[in-house]
């Protein structure tokens, strides 16, 4: 066992660090640091900077124009990017759709869609969840009926993250209602400009508008946009879920978040002394830091296993639960650290939201982030679903 990076890994870490120091625009990292909302233009610009370096499609094989990083390299990038306050890479096209196309799509589909993801020509969003299909995703009802050379799609998707920017959506749709739920699902690529599609924003409790409802009324989709075989979509979705699980622990975000809490607790005063010296608050910081140190090592254990070709199963579920609990605890500490200046509410939905913030600049995003990150234990399979997976895998069939 050796807990330090190899020379090669350290060299890669320096390369990433130098790249971020040189190429990450200052106004962008400031925005991320202060919890501001990134515009589509910001995200496009960052993608294009990464693409110029060949680092946008980190997990793609080189044959498709990717960087083909192993799990350790991806981990190093995630960690450095979080510490540098780089915007996160928008995952929908790059790490959620692309692996499915590469594995199950036709050559024509790969040739057509993959370069457009890299160039930013297409912005993808994910059409999985429905009002009646959350953690129980296989119960989805959006219906696609084949009529000649096209499907007609009717139904509703929800929680569509950044769907307001998207021109394309990849969807799970029901193509057979007479079989077991999982066996009647297909994977369709749909142009958002097709008549009959309507996108409605959902304002979240933190005031942000990052998610949407997407409605489909008699939407015509060419059969050429079916990925793989009809009624095999569930298999593809499950494959995708394993890709969604890289960086599932959010170690980089937690490290950056913990540093921010410490900075805040050094400037805030409690009984005339820095809050960080308050024994009760210091104990809460230390407790979560200890948990995070252990989880970082758990994460590295799985990353190093994955780099050797192992597939995380149970461990990914464990990291999802622990990682979300730790991030949420850090969000809670940040909220408490700023005291009364956590109270001002700047909703995107309320006019004048972009005025100068009340109180210290670090105070503005913390309460909103706390509420926004309640999602961490809900999405991607809620923590209860993860616990179920862990228990069932461990206990096996019982009679």
């Amino acid at each position, binding site marked *: *066992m050796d807990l330090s990076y190899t020379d090669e890994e350290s060299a890669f870490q320096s390369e990433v660090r130098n790249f971020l120091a040189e190429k990450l625009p200052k106004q962008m990292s400031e925005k991320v640091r202060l919890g501001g909302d990134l515009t589509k233009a910001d995200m496009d610009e960052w993608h294009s900077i990464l693409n110029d370096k060949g680092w946008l499609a980190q997990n793609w094989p080189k044959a498709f124009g990717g960087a083909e990083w192993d799990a350790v390299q991806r981990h190093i990038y995630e960690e450095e990017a979080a510490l540098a306050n780089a915007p996160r890479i928008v995952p929908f096209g790059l790490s959620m759709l692309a692996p499915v196309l590469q594995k199950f799509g036709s050559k024509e589909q790969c040739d057509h869609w993959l370069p457009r993801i890299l160039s930013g020509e297409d912005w993808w969003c994910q059409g999985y969840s429905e009002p009646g299909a959350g953690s129980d995703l296989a119960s989805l009802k959006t219906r696609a009926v084949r009529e000649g050379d096209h499907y007609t799609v009717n139904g509703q998707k929800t929680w569509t993250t950044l769907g307001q920017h998207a021109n394309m959506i990849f969807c799970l749709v029901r193509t057979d209602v007479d079989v077991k739920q999982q066996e009647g699902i297909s994977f369709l690529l749909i142009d958002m400009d097709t008549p009959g599609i309507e996108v409605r924003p959902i304002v979240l409790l933190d005031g942000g508008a990052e998610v949407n409802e997407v409605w489909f009324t008699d939407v015509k989709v060419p059969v050429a946009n079916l990925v793989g075989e009809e009624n095999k979509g569930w298999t593809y979705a499950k494959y995708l879920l394993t890709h969604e699980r890289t960086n599932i622990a959010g170690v980089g975000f937690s490290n950056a978040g913990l540093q921010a809490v410490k900075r805040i607790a050094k400037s805030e005063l409690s009984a005339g002394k820095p809050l960080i010296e308050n024994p009760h608050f210091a*104990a809460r910081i*230390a407790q979560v*830091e200890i948990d995070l*140190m252990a989880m970082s*090592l758990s994460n590295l254990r799985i990353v*190093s296993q994955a780099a050797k070709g192992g597939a995380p199963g149970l461990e990914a579920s464990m990291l999802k639960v622990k990682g979300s609990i730790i991030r949420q605890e850090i969000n809670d500490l940040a909220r408490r650290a700023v005291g009364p200046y956590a109270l001002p509410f700047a909703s995107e939905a309320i006019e004048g939201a972009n005025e100068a913030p009340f109180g210290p600049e670090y105070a503005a995003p913390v309460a909103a982030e706390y509420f926004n990150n309640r999602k961490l234990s809900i999405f991607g399979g809620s923590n209860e679903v993860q616990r179920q997976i862990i*228990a069932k895998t461990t*206990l096996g069939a*019982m009679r």
Partner: protein
Amino acid sequence: MNFELTEERQMLQDTLRRFLADKYDVPTRNAILESESGMSAKIWSQLAELGIQGALFDEAQGGFGGAGFDIAVVFEELGRAGTVEPILETCIFGGGLIAALGNEAQKGLLESIIDGNTKIALAHSEPRSRYDLSRVETQYEDGKIKGHKSMAMGAPNADFVIISVRESGGNDDQNGISLFLVPASDLDMRTTAVMGGGMAADIYLDGLSVSDDKRLGPKGSAFLYLETVFAKAITAICAQTLGGMETATKLTIDYLQTRKQFGKPIGTFQALQHRLSDMLIELEQARSAVIGAAGYLDADTHLRDRYVSAAKNLVGRAARLIAEEAIQMHGGIAMTQEYELAHIAKRVVMADHMFGDTDHHLERFIALSAV
């Protein structure tokens, strides 16, 4: 970055696990726990034959290991089987201090420790020191030791005891602490069995005559060496507790699969499934904490102590959760002394009372973070 055991350590782990599964079964262990000495001399020599004591010393000391991951591998297996023999006291404290500080004559003991012929204990804590490493009130003056040492683990079975004394400075000063290596037969002890296994003693030093040449290391400067062996001991006991937690978790999984109530295995109940998942999650956290402590044991002392204190804090919390949940999910059967889980649960919980508990190490971690 590499999280795989070396071939040698993998072999050590396999050998020790097989040996203990075979020779240290539950009836054997229960008999040892009820015996007067609270340990098995036979097991002790068999462990030495397998090279377990030797694995805890480096080559210069006559062994073939001694690194953090050797300690972690050995103690995880000892913990898995719930062994109660004083390996930690003899090899980590006794052997560790003698190897670091001993003169030629004292170092002669290392060979017989590794061969399984000598057992050592450390008498450091005192009724008023709690977990504070630098607090030593016991005095050495004019060739005599005066004081009271408390809960010296392993002392009742030891051949020699290392006693810490103050030769200068105030009661809490790091400077001024010395060690003496004395034959156990010279000591006035009151012995007790320990909750969770093993034997301990309070030692009454009412002007015990000890000649100057029994001093272990230079006068007044033992503190740094104590810190180092305590870092190793904490790593060892965290690994031992990890092994115990693995056993407790495995017993709970078996029980959930087989115990039927209301006509079905209790493992089919979601209320219990989710609690099992939380046990498994904390077990992985504890495993990582032990890896951290073992991996940074030879790093600079600040980094080492952060990981060591983090591990002791985290493992202490995880042990309490896993022991309590294991007992709860077993129900009544876990309340009996005879059932396998009882000893394991006691052992992992009571480890929190050794070398600093979760609160002590949280405070130490905070102090280290401020630097």
